[in-house]
């Protein structure tokens, strides 16, 4: 029982829940793990499969290698087999595991032998373990077999032990993430016995190597490795269990490992060793390479090798980085200190070093010297291949112009020195030449400056050193001068070149940062997802200097291009299929990756919080491939940014719709409750009165009259309520058609008073409409309704002794109508709220509270405005402004009077 004081760490719990949730939809992976071929992994797997089948589970054989062994083949009996796919490659037909067939069939358990197998070219994935991953993602459980030497991180160790390098490897994390690892063991003696009996499969070509492989020492060592690995797996499970149940545990002090690699074949070994170290320490680890001006630029081959090394590092679970600094040592140490690195791993320097490097301390010595409290591990080992050739000399036509300039400068110096010669000491003349050489070094580079140095010395010697106008040198000191000049020129030119390179590198970095910054700035502005996608694609195009496109799913969940698709994309239907695959599986694919590498574009998923949001397609310029880890890291960062922005835009859209929906529901609810209450009140009055009249015969005439009056009044009230509702509905639905005519305000006022005047009852009504008021272009029925509503409002909220005034006057290109009273006035601060739908000063008052809302809707439909204000000392005023647009055609007037016609 976990102690009460210890609660499980919430983060860990969350991870566990997420893992469990993922597991429910993800298939389970069981690895039959062995130390070497021949221990019986396939056999064990098939046995277990048969037991499962007997228990009633669905088991399908995806791919099983029997290697001709009868006993293994027997175990296949009864298990349904997935037919293989035939791949035609270079004239031969190869059989390969059919991934699409398996996905279509969706068995609950699939047997897939030999996880490390490399698929035939033309398959979707390069490796079978990727096929297994896709199957697991799709929900199919997979059982597979694996030998210890196929593990990536152990590859070199195994090579050391057995002297056989295994080429097909599987990333370690596959074994770590496996749900079950069953170690299939066979003691070495028994294995050797089986080998002698011919029961172990060895391909023809490998006979000789196998002889070396299957020695007892080797097999024992491999067995130990495999057992240790299995123990690690169990240990990890144990740790997870303990963490989930909050069993206290002493954590080691936080360690961090930094590995420095160079573009040589050593780096693979270095990385694997560091991976083992990091695993043992349970520490995060970083693999870095250093770019410094002290080092020569990388050839494409070196870049490739470095890229491969980084890929390996990432596969093994490291973070990668490219550091830059003045020197390797300085760059490494500053990074290490900044990131709390506790251990640095370096490779031993090569035995033969270039003479130039001897002048300075080697990077190793620099690091060790300045490492302080950081541990430095130096890993040694033979290099399997010779170091790569020096950087390929840039072939091409040598530009003669800088050299011409160098010569010209020397000539200029000579001309300068000539008049100075009689007066100045020769040492000063040397300075002039030195100046010239320095100038050439900064402007034109190393070799022109060397030429300038040589020419300067020659010129100096020829013109200014006795014997004049000869090349003889009588004084040996001038040899020193020459040497020094040459050295200076080389130093300066070297420095100038380095500075230029650094500036260029900085410019590159700045450009990349700027692109990221520009993108994030653009993406921050609220926009529709499609616009965001287009912007993002443009930025990516700038970065990779090739066409780029973002694809987002439409309502039917089909990927659609968000901008004009580049030609190469639009013309090939297969590209669309790759994009689709990336969208559904959430993993990158296409050019430069291991999945569907034959595609023309590289496709990166846009990862959202819960699912892939879309796909980024790009086609980098040919020279930029393969992408450096720096660049792929940048692209991934871009993809994440785009995904985040798109997700935000989509969420905003959803939130907006939800808001609108909620508002609509609220109004509907209010309306329904209002309607049912307010209609029922007059109805119950009418029913009551009418039934009294019918049932009670003893009612007197006065009472009868009273009841009848009630019925009439309530019925009229009901009519008003219903009319208001109808008006509101029509205005809201937008089906309102304004029928504008040039109307006289006077007439509308008259009609409104005729209709609504009764309601005002005993109140005093003042009407002021000037005779020369211009005609207004309005819908007369609506404006009459507007005035009637305002009058009704006055009648409702003023006492019978109040005065109501209705006035109209001409204003600037408008007519203003005012309805005011001297009643109690509006509640303070409510001048705007009164126009809201369903607003009532006291809840449960008469009517729906729609009258003023209708007024506002009518006025606004006419392009006018209505406002409420308070009257001093008390009362309410409603001011309506109806704009006059245009003018009626002029009317010819006759004479004012006439006699009989």
């Amino acid at each position: 029982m976990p102690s009460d004081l210890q609660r499980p760490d919430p983060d860990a719990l969350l991870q566990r829940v997420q893992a469990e949730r993922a597991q429910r939809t993800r298939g389970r992976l069981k690895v039959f793990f062995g130390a070497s071929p021949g221990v019986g992994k396939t056999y064990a797997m098939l046995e277990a499969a048969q037991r499962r089948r007997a228990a009633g589970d669905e088991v399908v054989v995806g791919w099983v290698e029997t290697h001709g062994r009868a006993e293994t083949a027997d175990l296949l009996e009864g298990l349904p087999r997935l037919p293989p796919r035939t791949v035609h490659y270079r004239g031969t037909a190869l059989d390969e595991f059919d991934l699409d067939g398996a996905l279509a069939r969706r068995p609950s358990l699939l047997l897939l032998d030999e996880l490390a197998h490399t698929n035939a070219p033309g398959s979707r994935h390069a490796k079978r373990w990727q096929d297994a991953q896709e199957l697991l993602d799709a929900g199919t459980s997979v059982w597979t077999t694996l030998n210890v030497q196929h593990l990536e991180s152990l590859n070199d160790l195994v090579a050391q032990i057995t002297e056989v390098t295994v080429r097909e490897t599987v990333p370690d994390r596959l074994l770590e993430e496996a749900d079950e690892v069953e170690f299939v063991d066979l003691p070495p003696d028994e294995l050797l016995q089986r080998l002698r009996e011919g029961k172990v499969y060895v391909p023809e070509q490998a006979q000789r190597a196998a002889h070396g492989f299957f020695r007892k020492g080797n097999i024992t060592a491999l067995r130990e490795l495999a057992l240790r690995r299995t123990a690690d797996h169990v240990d990890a499970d144990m740790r997870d269990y303990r963490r989930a149940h909050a069993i206290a545990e002493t954590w080691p002090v936080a360690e961090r490992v930094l590995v420095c690699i160079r573009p040589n074949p050593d780096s693979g070994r270095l990385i694997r060793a560091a991976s083992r170290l990091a695993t043992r320490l349970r520490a995060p680890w970083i693999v870095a390479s250093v770019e410094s001006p002290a080092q020569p630029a990388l050839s494409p081959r070196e870049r490739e090798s470095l890229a491969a090394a980084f890929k390996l590092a990432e596969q093994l679970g490291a973070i990668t980085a490219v550091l830059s600094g003045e020197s390797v040592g300085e760059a490494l140490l500053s990074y290490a200190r900044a990131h709390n690195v506790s251990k640095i791993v370096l490779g031993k320097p090569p035995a033969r070093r270039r003479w130039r490097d001897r002048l300075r301390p080697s990077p190793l010595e620099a690091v060790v010297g300045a490492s302080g409290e950081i541990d430095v591990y130096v890993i040694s080992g033979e290099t399997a291949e010779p170091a790569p050739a020096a950087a390929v000399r840039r072939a091409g036509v040598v530009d003669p112009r800088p050299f011409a300039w160098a010569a010209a400068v020397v000539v200029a110096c000579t001309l300068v020195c000539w008049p100075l010669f009689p007066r100045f000491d020769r040492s000063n003349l040397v300075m002039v030449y030195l100046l010239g050489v320095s100038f050439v070094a900064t402007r034109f580079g190393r070799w022109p400056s060397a030429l300038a140095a040589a020419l300067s010395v020659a010129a100096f010697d020829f013109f200014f050193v006795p014997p004049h106008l000869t090349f003889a040198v009588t004084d040996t000191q001038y040899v020193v001068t020459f040497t020094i000049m040459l050295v200076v020129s080389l130093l300066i030119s070297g420095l100038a070149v380095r500075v230029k390179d650094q500036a260029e590198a900085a410019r590159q970095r700045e450009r990349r940062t700027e692109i990221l910054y520009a993108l994030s700035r653009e993406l921050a502005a609220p926009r529709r997802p499609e616009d965001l996608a287009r912007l993002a694609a443009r930025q990516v195009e700038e970065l990779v200097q090739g066409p780029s496109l973002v694809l987002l799913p439409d309502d039917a969940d089909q990927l659609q291009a968000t901008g004009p698709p580049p030609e190469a994309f639009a013309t090939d239907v297969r590209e669309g299929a790759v994009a689709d695959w990336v969208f559904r599986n959430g993993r990158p694919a296409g050019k430069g990756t291991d999945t569907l590498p034959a595609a023309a574009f590289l496709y990166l998923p846009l990862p959202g919080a819960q699912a892939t949001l879309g796909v980024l397609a790009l086609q980098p310029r040919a020279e930029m491939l393969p992408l450096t880890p720096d660049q792929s890291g940048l692209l991934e960062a871009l993809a994440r940014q785009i995904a985040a922005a798109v997700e935000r835009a989509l969420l905003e859209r959803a939130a907006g719709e939800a808001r609108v929906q909620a508002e609509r529901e609220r109004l509907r609810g209010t309306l329904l409750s209002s309607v049912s209450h307010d209609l029922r009140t007059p109805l119950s009055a009418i029913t009551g009165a009418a039934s009294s009249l019918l049932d009670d015969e003893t009612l007197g005439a006065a009472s009868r009259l009273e009841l009848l009056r009630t019925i009439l009044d309530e019925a009229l009230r009901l009519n008003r309520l219903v009319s208001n509702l109808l008006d509101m509905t029509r205005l809201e639905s937008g089906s309102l058609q304004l029928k504008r005519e040039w109307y006289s305000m006077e007439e509308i006022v008259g009609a409104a008073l005729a209709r609504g005047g009764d309601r005002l009852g005993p109140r005093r009504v003042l009407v002021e409409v000037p005779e020369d008021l211009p005609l207004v272009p309005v819908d007369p029925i609506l404006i009459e309704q507007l005035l009637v509503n305002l009058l009704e409002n006055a009648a409702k909220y003023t006492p019978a002794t109040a005065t109501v005034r209705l006035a109209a006057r001409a204003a600037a290109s408008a007519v203003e109508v005012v309805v005011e009273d001297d009643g109690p006035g509006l509640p303070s601060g409510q001048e705007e709220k009164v126009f809201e739908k369903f607003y009532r000063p006291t809840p449960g008052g008469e009517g729906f509270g729609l009258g003023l809302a209708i007024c506002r809707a009518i006025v606004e439909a006419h392009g006018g405005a209505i406002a409420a204000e308070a009257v001093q000392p008390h009362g309410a005023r409603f001011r309506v402004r109806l704009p006059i647009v245009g003018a009626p055609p002029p009317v010819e007037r006759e004479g004012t009077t006439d006699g009989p016609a």
Partner: protein
Amino acid sequence: MAPPEPAPPATAPLILVVDDEAAVRRFLRATLPHQGYRLVECETGAQALVEASTRSPDLILLDLGLPDLDGVEVTRRLREWTATPVIVLSARGQENDKIEALDAGADDYLTKPFGMGELLARMRVALRHRDVDGDEEPVFEAGELKVDLGARRVHVRGTEVHLTRTEYRLLALLVRHAGKVVTHRQLLKEVWGPGSADQTHYLRVYMGTLRHKIEEDAARPRWLTTEIGVGYRLKVD
């Protein structure tokens, strides 16, 4: 219960009620005979045309919202062969139909829900015009308004009012249809000619001046009332 009402005499005017709503017919059935009218009811436009031709009613109350033919069509067909007054019963929102029916020849209209008083007043006006049509009264009087159609003179509250020719023609037309609504179209056609049927602003201006000359309070006219969206009516009560 009150004793049953005596049936109106056979010479009482015959009213044809065309309405598909039973409640309206019931209400009319209960009240109109008491006012001295005989009643015939039907529910559809087709029936109405048949009844109108066979029974020769004195007045037709026509609902616009009929199930088969719309009221405007019925009015048009009726007007092809009879001058029997037609009052259309319209609901709110049927403004267009109302105006069309009036232009097609209906004499007046009522908006549901209406009160008995209104209905009876309009029926009286419509019937009076039918009786009087062939025989125009030379002098029209309504309260303090006196219009001498023969002499072409108008007096209000004892004083003579001078009108222009057009103003007089307007007034005269309204007087001839006193109590009934006259649509804009009718007014424009009669006073300004058939080509001016859509120059409503003319009407506004002239009616405005006419009102100011005749009425005490032009904004609350006693006689020259505006029927919003439809036309004008010279009120006689």
